[in-house]
């Protein structure tokens, strides 16, 4: 007696990708489609494997004001699953709460959406084990209280599965998202916990499984590596989980030691090799290259050289299905000064560091950030952003001035 289902979360359908202004139109279009492509792959797997149902544990859409295209695409996906008699159990998360504005789309009779209060929905089909699915959808963007006390196990089923879009307590950044502890989940005595919200694939417990499948498609440069969903088979004796890749675009971040590289040619050859190694069978790769440890490279990595280098590396990629697109090259070249030492010195650079530490904001930035036209498009600078800006400015100054001193 077993059931098979798919557990996915954080689809963020139609999410705009940022920081990819360099992408040519064809690749841009593919990247824009990638969240949908990933969903289509999920549906394809569900149909191939003839799963009993699909669980979507929150953040199906990217914003409260869901795009029409995203909703229509999901509708088509659900219809395709309905043709195979596959049911869908989904909840809305912090990115697509119920109070958002969206177009009235009905998804079909095979789709069951959890309401704002935890409830139990049943999977009840002749010849199949009876399954109780527990879950809720976010009413608003933030839920600061734990919702687990409202998950009441009903013993009229063979299997019990919990859906929860949230984060572990104590994770301060995320505490506003239905916080929970693993112990609390275990106490519910469920057979499986289908979590969502954390975009990284993560197992909190092996048996009973408590898993974050991660986002279905890497959504930003931070979400590196392969992304997808779990194909789960639940049996009385235990569970078997298989991760299945769904992402069409893979973000990669490579730190490369450039030890002996001295010339541009050498650098290009080396980076081309790296690029080819990064190429995947059918997925596109967005590559961030971070170059380390070479003083010779300093001169090579001036701004204009970097642009030139990117152009060379991007050559011919636009037409490829399995493209590898280096979207940025950064250098974290070894500093030839000791920051802590500098900070202590009574030299001007020491003064500069000490001064930067005491500055909290830079009023002159208002010229842009409070600009009447610009401000509506700019994200306001938070304290942490300002701190980072000051740090970067300080680094820039030290690098230039230090070079002058020692040259």
């Amino acid at each position: 007696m077993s059931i098979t289902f798919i557990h996915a979360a954080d689809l963020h359908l139609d999410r705009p990708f940022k920081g990819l202004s360099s992408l040519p139109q064809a690749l841009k279009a593919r990247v824009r489609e990638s969240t949908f492509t990933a969903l289509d792959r999920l549906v394809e797997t569900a149909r191939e494997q003839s799963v009993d149902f699909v669980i979507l544990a929150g953040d199906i859409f990217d914003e409260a004001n869901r795009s029409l295209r995203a909703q229509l695409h999901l509708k088509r996906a659900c219809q395709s699953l309905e043709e195979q008699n596959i049911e869908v159990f989904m909840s809305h998360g912090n990115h697509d709460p119920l109070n958002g504005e969206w177009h009235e789309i009905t998804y079909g009779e095979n789709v069951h959406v959890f309401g704002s209060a935890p409830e139990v929905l049943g999977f009840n089909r002749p010849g199949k084990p009876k399954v109780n699915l527990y879950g809720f959808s976010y009413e608003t963007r933030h839920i600061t209280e734990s919702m687990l006390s409202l998950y009441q196990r009903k013993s009229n089923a063979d299997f019990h599965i919990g859906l929860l879009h949230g984060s572990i307590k104590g994770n301060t950044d995320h505490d506003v998202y239905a916080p929970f502890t693993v112990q609390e989940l275990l106490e519910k005595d469920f057979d499986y916990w289908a979590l969502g919200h954390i975009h990284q694939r993560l197992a909190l417990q092996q048996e009973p499984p408590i898993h974050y499948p991660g986002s279905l498609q890497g959504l930003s440069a931070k979400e590196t590596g392969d992304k997808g969903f779990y194909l789960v088979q639940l049996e009385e004796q235990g569970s078997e989980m298989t991760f299945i890749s769904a992402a069409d675009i893979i973000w990669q971040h490579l730190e490369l030691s450039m030890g002996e590289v001295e010339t541009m040619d050498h650098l290009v050859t080396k980076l081309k090799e790296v690029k080819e190694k990064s190429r995947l069978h059918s997925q596109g790769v967005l590559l961030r290259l971070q170059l380390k440890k070479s003083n010779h490279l300093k001169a090579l990595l001036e701004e204009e050289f970097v642009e030139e280098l990117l152009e060379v590396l991007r050559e011919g990629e636009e037409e490829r299905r399995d493209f590898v697109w280096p979207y940025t090259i950064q250098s974290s070249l070894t500093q030839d000064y000791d920051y802590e030492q500098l900070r202590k010195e009574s030299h001007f650079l020491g003064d500069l560091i000490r001064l930067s530490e005491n500055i909290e904001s830079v009023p002159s930035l208002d010229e842009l950030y409070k600009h009447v036209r610009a401000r509506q498009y700019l994200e306001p600078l938070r304290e942490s952003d300002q701190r980072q800006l000051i740090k970067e400015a300080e680094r820039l100054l030290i690098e230039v001035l230090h070079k002058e001193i020692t040259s």
Partner: protein
Amino acid sequence: MKFISVYIERFGQFYQWSQTFGEGSFLVLYGPNEAGKSTLMAFIKAILFGFPKKTELRPYISGPIEKLDIGGTLTIEIESIGRIKIERYLHKNEGQATLYLPHGDLGDEDDLQRQWLKGYSRRIYDSIFSFNLEGLKDLDRMKADEFNHYLFSTGMMGSSNIFKLENHLQKKAAHLFKPSGSVPPINKLISELSELKKKLTSWHRTLDDYKHWKQELTTLLDQQGQEEERLKATEHRHAQFLKYKACESLFIDYQFLLSKITEFTDHASFPDEGLSQYEQWHGRIVTLQGEAAELRSRQAALKERMQTITVDTAFIAKEEEIYSLRREYEFIQSVEPEFQVRNESLRLEQKEYALQLQKLGVVDASINIETLQTGFHIKQELKELLQRFESLKQKHQVLETTIDEQEDFITQLQETCNKGRENSMPDDQFQALETAIFRDQDRQLLIQEKQMKQQQMGDLEARKQTQKRIETLMIGLPSGFLLSLFVLGVVLIYFGAGLSGGLTIGFGLLFAAASFLIMRSLKGRQPVEPILKAIKKEMQRIDELLNQKSSEDQQQLKESYQVEKSKRDQLRFDTQRLEEAKQSYKENITRFDNVRFEMNQALAEIKQWAKVYGFPIVNNAVIYLDIYDLIEGVKERKIRMHHLEVQQQEHVDRKEAYEHKLEMLQQELEAPEYQPFDFEADLVKYKENQSKRRQLEDTIQELQEQEAGLMKKIARYQEECDKLLTEAGVETEEAFRHLAKRAEELRELKKQRESLWLQINHVVPQQDFLNQAMRWFETGYWAETQEEELIQEVKALKESLASKQKRIADLNSAIRQLEETIPHADLKHEYEEKRSELNDLAKQWAVYRTAKELLTEAKEAYRKTQLPKVLHQASEYIKEITAGRYKNIFFSEEDQFILELTEGKIIPLYQLSRGTKEQVYVSLRLALAAIFSAPYALPLFIDDGFVNFDDDRKEQTINLLKKIAVRRQVIILTCHEMNPNQGMERIDLSSERMESYG
């Protein structure tokens, strides 16, 4: 701190080079270009602060003598502590310093950096304590602002141009964004975003429309559903109305009939169908009475007819006999021709029988034919006996012929043998000839025997030699044992070991006996000599035989022998054949006799057969079979004759019995002339009459029964009529008929009601609807309803639905069009991407702005805190250098360096001579070093500092440095000759060091 001496193991062009800097603290290191001044400075810094990074170190590590380690030692002197030697090598101790302290103590890198250098770095040393005037070489080309900024930067941090950096940052930021610009990327992006936003807003409106369309569609679909329901209901109501209207008039008629029927309540007692029943019963009575009269008349007619039919019962009683006689007559008539034929056959048989008897009588007249036995097995027995006899007879003839042939053959062979004996030689002669032939063959055998004997003789000779040697040993060995052990025994006895000596002698005897016996057995018991003699004798005999001379005409003998031998072989063969022929002849004679005996025996058996079965006995056995066949034929004919006779007798008997029976019947029925067919004809006639009479009787009986039945029925029908009158409550038929008329009228009304009801049911076949319609009729449900109103209502609903469907189709089309195109999503992506790009660029801009801000702030802080101290110290120095001509250096609000002359006059520095500018620069650098809070006064390195100074200023500067040198060691590196001053030590560096290295 003071540098005392250096030892360079290897560094740049220095190899195992040492130099003492002397006791003074004001030092001029003189050397031409490439003499190694900078290398020496780099060495000292490397020893103090550690080796720089490989790239910086590279110029100093290549060279021909690479086996030497890079590095060396630097000896410094610190007041209050003493001299410390710092040793540092690139490989040794992995580049870490080792300190040799004044009292023999050792220190390490950590001590050096923390305790002695107090955290001073190469950078600080480079920027503060060592400087050159390289930057001043473009002094003439500098504008006022640039010069002031340059000096300010120098005063701030030694060498860099902060103002340049500030400008650079400003430019970078402006390149990205200008508050009122349109070209910089950020401004461009803002414009693009603005455009995109407009489009998006427009799309939002469209999407709002979409939302409204969706809502309207939902509402319309709801309304459509409701209206469809209403239309359906109204159409249904209309249909019901029409159906009701179709039967309403019928309902009215029906209602009228029902009211009329209720008026006939007083005639309820008249029986249903009373009149018709009465009429029916009455009618039947009349009919039945007519039928009864008819029956009676028919009976009378039948009785009359019966009287005319006669019947003789005597004939009928004899029916069986009459028919039997008639059948017997027919049979006798039918077999009469057959009787005549049989008579003729019998006569012919008797004639033939007589003939055959006559034929047999020739053989033996005494035979009684009827007693003879015949049969298949008897005949078979005879055939077998005759067959055997015939076979023996044939064999007898064959043997007779064979014996005659054999007699002739024996005679011929006898003659041949006699001739053969005559031609061959006598036996003794032939034997002699044979002996002579065989002797030659024995000769070969004799040679082989002789060779064998010779070999036997050789073996025997060898055996004879061995026996001789054993005989010798047989005597020697026991004697030796006996003698030696005897001597040993005697010696032992002599020395007092009596027992041992005795035993030894005993052993000696024992060994001697044993060895003798062993030898004898080895020698063998049989003597060889007599055998040898016998063999020799045999050999002599063989030699004699071999020496006999062979026959001279051996060949001839062989030929004669072969001829004679073949003759003798032929004779032996013929003789053998003769004997065999004689033997065969004898055997055939015996066989012939046996066959003849068997033949006689077989004939006797045949005769015995004849005797047993009564056949005549004849000598010729062959005719027995014919006799048998004749007798068998006679016997058969006799049987046939008897059979015919029996049949003729039976026929005669039957004929007589018939005639007797006929006579009897004629008498009984008194018809003497009647033949069987006459009797039969009468019988048939009487039987027919009898049958007719019976039929008539039955008919009369039947008619009587019918008449009785009719009378019964008439009585019962009359009862029924009376009963109807009673039921109707009347006594007379007339009263009954009146009542019947009224009842008929009521029945007619009911019939009409039924018909009407059927009509209603035909119009409204559904029972439910009929019931409903009846209720509607009763309650007047449709009384107020007009058909036109219903039609109008349906029409209105249909129109409304059509308009809604059109609107729904339009909305669906619009929604679908929007859903299928969706350019909005792409627009949004583009908008978000641009926004992201804008934010990235803004952050880049913010970094430049922040950096500039930081720099400005640091500069301001410096201007407020550090600069006054530096200027104050620099003023002291410039006064010293210019011998009091200038007394103060200021930095104005307009970012200008200003010099104050002793007399109080103020002149912007930029307007003064190059030399003065250089002096101010030197003063600022010295001041910076002076106010720097170093733990120990670090030595000051000045690289070619005073090239452009005039002699006076140079001297005054030297004097100033001399004063400074009191507090800290000053080392000037120069390639220009300088006048030796008091207190200044000079060290020359040679550029030919490489050649001098041995």
